[in-house]
């Protein structure tokens, strides 16, 4: 086990983006607002989450509660940036990718769903979600 920690196997690298996308650290408060924003973060359209004030949360995707204990920072960053690198069939949009898309609307062409800073903000917020949803 110690040996594994000292030199992580190749898949562990593939499972995460350990380097932040920006020099300035993410802001969890801004991140929370983005997650709840149905025009920007879009998260609650598919994911339920610990947002007692938000009605009409989706149930297509895992509960965001506990995301910060299920995954580490690098793993969450990859899942936001381009989760299709892990599962090509995933319905999770790639939030920081502009290549390989089909018929993108003119207003969105060449633009990522979120900016690099916004990804870091959302990430900072998700890392605060340590507790799993009550079952």
């Amino acid at each position: 086990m110690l040996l594994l920690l000292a030199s992580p196997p190749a898949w562990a690298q593939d499972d995460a983006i350990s380097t932040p996308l920006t020099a300035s650290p993410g802001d969890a408060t801004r991140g929370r607002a983005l997650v709840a924003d149905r025009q920007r973060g879009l998260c609650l359209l598919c994911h339920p989450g610990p947002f007692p004030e938000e009605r009409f949360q989706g149930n297509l995707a895992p509960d965001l509660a506990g995301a910060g204990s299920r995954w580490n920072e690098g793993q969450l960053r990859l899942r936001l940036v381009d989760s299709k690198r892990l599962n090509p069939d995933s319905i999770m949009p790639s939030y920081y990718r502009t290549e390989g898309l089909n018929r993108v609307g003119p207003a969105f062409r060449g633009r990522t769903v979120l900016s690099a800073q916004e990804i870091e903000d959302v990430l900072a917020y998700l890392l605060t979600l340590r507790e799993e949803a009550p079952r």
Partner: protein
Amino acid sequence: MKRALPILLLAPLCLSASAQERRSGFENMARDTQAMQTDDTANPGMLWVLEGQSLWHQPAGPAAQSCASCHQNTEVSMRGVAARYPAWDEASAAPIDLAGRIAQCRETRQGAPPLARESQGLLSLSAYVGNQSRGLPIAPPADPRMDAAREQGRALYTARRGQLDLSCAQCHDDNAGRRLAGSTIPQAHPTGYPLYRLEWQTLGSLQRRLRGCMTGVRAEPFAYGASEYVAIEAFLASRAQGMALETPAVRP
């Protein structure tokens, strides 16, 4: 036999969502919305049906012919017609949907000014003709000339598109019955078009609905009347074969 058995056992697992029990979006609705559809005096779509009935009998074009001048006894002559569309159009040697056929007939046979897609006139006439098939099973033509369009429709239905990179199938097959925000995702069965959508506060076509989803995934929609839409309509009609038409349906 040793090889065949595991394959037989696996077969049920291989059935896609389209092999699930088919449900009209009607069944996902709250009871009061269902009642709004089934009660003609409460169904707002019936206003378009009545407007369509009036247009149907209104002379237009240089020869002052109405739809009814040729298609007499509408309740009989138009019964079942909407259930068969999209169908093959000899004139253009391409598939055509019901709204396209009505617009074509009006322009080429009546010589009347063209009716634009999603115009009140075309929606009303489509609702009126569609209403004549209410309760009848969707019956796509067996015409093999439609096969290529159905295949194209299937390909379009399963292709990811837009900035959000989602296909129709990923929501309406793989996740039908689950909730996208507050809305239950329906299976994609075009049983009630044109229909009154509470979200639109008006009647709209299946093409409008398809455009709405495309815009939702931040894709560039096709232009109204595009062959791509007719292909998707033909594919969806083939999947919904046998389901009852509800025109004009009401949806949330």
